[in-house]
């Protein structure tokens, strides 16, 4: 496989995953906003900006932080490199560059997702936003399904690798921001707003039901953290992402003989996660733990680029 193709497939995986994540985040925030009395709704949108690391860029626009403006910024704003429309643009550009490595189904799925934004570029109300993100989620699921039906070779694994690296980063940032999100003044810890925020987190990673299956207790922040960090059963947990990375790298290695620093970093990280105990992480500092995880993720990303000679 061409090195350029490998790079585009990897980034295709990353951008599709990012688009899906942003769509889920917007959806969950719309819900949180609707349930909260102002100004908690405003805080919800502020946190969404921080999760996507676009709070500074948003501040530059000078727009007030409210549902209409932030939702617009996160979905259809072409000035925001992290917006849905830009993620899908990048995903499609990469897919176009490697069309020959994709099946027709995989390509049309991504092209269809991209076409969604060609037809409707108008800022909408909450309903319109929810419809749009629902459509994006459906299309990215369609893409994942199409990828599953592709020949089981490096092309598929590189897409999965990109998705796993991106997903790990997204989950880590989601937990980091939401955990540290300040409750509005006067709101009790464990009160309705607090609960709603934790539910939002679970919704963003589609884990509301998973939580109920895995934990007998009601919604507790430390258990949500446990779920998102250490439970490999949940596809978007850090543990699952890390295992996926190790597995995919070893599949590529078996087929091409290409193994190296990326494999070593990924395996180290898995060993470390297996040793992770949630209560210890919380005592020692969740933010520091997540910060370190995000830095490791970036180092792994760089190692992958070297190992597969991305150009």
């Amino acid at each position, binding site marked *: 496989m*061409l090195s350029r193709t490998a790079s585009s497939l990897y980034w295709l995986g990353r951008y599709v995953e990012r688009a899906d994540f942003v769509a889920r985040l917007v959806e969950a925030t719309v819900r949180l906003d609707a349930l909260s009395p102002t100004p908690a709704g405003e805080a919800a949108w502020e946190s969404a900006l921080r999760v996507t690391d676009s709070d500074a860029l948003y501040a530059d626009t000078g727009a007030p932080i409210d549902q209409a403006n932030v939702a617009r910024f996160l979905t259809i704003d072409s000035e925001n490199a992290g917006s849905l429309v830009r993620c899908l643009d990048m995903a499609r550009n990469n897919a176009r*560059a490697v*069309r*020959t490595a994709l099946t027709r189904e995989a390509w*049309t799925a991504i092209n269809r997702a991209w076409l969604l934004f060609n037809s409707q570029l108008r800022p909408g109300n909450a309903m319109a936003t929810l419809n749009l993100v629902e459509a994006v989620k459906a299309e990215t699921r369609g893409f994942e399904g199409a990828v599953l039906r592709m020949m089981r070779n490096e092309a598929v694994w590189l897409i999965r690798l990109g998705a796993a690296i991106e997903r790990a980063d997204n989950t880590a940032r989601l937990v980091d921001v939401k955990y540290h999100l300040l409750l509005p003044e006067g709101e009790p810890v464990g009160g309705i707003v607090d609960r709603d925020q934790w539910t939002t987190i679970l919704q963003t990673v589609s884990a509301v039901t998973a939580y109920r299956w895995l934990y007998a207790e009601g919604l507790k922040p430390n258990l949500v953290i446990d779920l998102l960090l250490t439970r490999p059963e949940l596809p978007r947990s850090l543990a699952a992402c890390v295992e996926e990375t190790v597995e995919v790298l070893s599949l590529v290695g078996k087929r091409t*003989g*290409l193994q190296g620093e990326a494999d070593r970093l990924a395996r180290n990280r898995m060993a470390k996660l297996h040793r992770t105990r949630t209560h210890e992480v919380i005592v020692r500092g969740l933010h520091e733990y997540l910060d370190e995880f995000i830095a490791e993720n970036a180092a792994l990303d760089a190692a992958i680029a070297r190992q*597969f*000679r991305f*150009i």
Partner: protein
Amino acid sequence: MEDNRAFDEIWGKGGPQAPRPEFAALAAWINETPREELQRRTEAAENTFRQLGITFAVYGDRDASERIIPFDIVPRVFLADEWARLSQGLIQRVEAINAFLDDIYGERRILAEGVLPAELVLGNAQFRHEVVGIRPPHGVFAHICGIDLVRTGPDEFYVLEDNARTPSGVSYMLENREAMIRLCPELFRSFRVAAVDSYPDRLHETMRSVAPEGSGLRPVCVVLTPGHFNSAYYEHSFLADSMGIELVEPADLVVDDDVVWMQTIAGRVKVDVIYRRIDDDYLDPLVFRPDSMLGVPGLMAAYRAGNVTLINAPGNGIADDKAIYSYMPEIVRFYSGGEAKLPNVETYRCREPQALKYVLERLPELVVKLVDGSGGYGMLVGPTATKAEIEAFRAALIAEPHRYIAQPTLALSTVPTMTEAGLAPRHVDFRPFVLTGRDGVQVVPGGLTRVALREGSLVVNSSQGGGTKDSFVLMPEERRQMQAMGGMLQRQELGS
């Protein structure tokens, strides 16, 4: 008074009530299928093309940077015997083009014998001094030719242009057929249409057949694209995909010690045959344009050393140059020893004073073209031009006559086409694709029919708003019987 209605491929000179006898079934289909149904199918086809991203990019048009080419549901049909005659003419012409290229980059017999003026070849911008003396592997220069044809009557086919560089459109030939099979299956029950879907295999065979000596049993073939912003990128990826070979960009290739390698995740892989969809100018900055950011440095040295086959060969532009075109009848005669089976459109070379005088006197009746223009740019269509346009061309002609040729406006044939006001005749041209490998020349039974969608317009280029149609080539009667027998035999074998 002369009947000035153009020949229609289906109605002939008659009308919807009196089709050409062979087309009764097609005429019945056209007449009996409700317009709304045809419209619905057209939209379904275009919708699929959009979802598949079968698009071309329009340069300098930021809002609609990708467009689909309008598709028309009514096919254009070639009868078996029409096609047999056309194929013979095409094979003869492409053989002559290859002989011509081999000759002028080698011995130059044709110039020595004065068949065409030496300076017209050697002083031509399309003549590449850089490849003089290089004989490509197995002597083939023009592996893929797209010969543009027009028709003015039952037996009047003319060659409008020879494309021997990087002719495009073959993906539309294949995708249009896919759309027709899906949307109008009944047509394939009433007509025995020759299949076009073997084209990618034939192209791949052609590529392998001209691999350099010593490439091994499985030569590595690739398609070289300028990248996914190129207007024909869809076609590049389509071809690589359907042949199952790599689609590479210049940055993926590196030349080391006159050998071309592609950079893969597992290291370098030697490349033997490159179907390049990049113009000569941008192939290799060490040889052609030094300012090109696109090319592969050292590619031409590898080519000269005989280590890689370039498809089509660099320097082919001289064969499809519009100034050389006017000499094609002489060129065909010189190399084949016979008369050209496919005539040229009558052409006035403005470089010749006599011809220039004639052209200047009759500008409003003629089509004038820049010899190095393409895609419908830099041309004057006299009958539809304004006075100002005509005067501007007159001035340009007088200033630089050698840059122009002129041709009479032909009454191009028409095919019924869906328009907003229902079916109406629209002018068409036709581009068949001719493959030349080590073992000879073959024509795929089909091609790209381009249709001018505006009423009366003769301009069919996609960059100028033209559309496309499927082109059916009907199988001869004997072939039908043979196929039926083949089918029976196969069933017997399976059953036993």
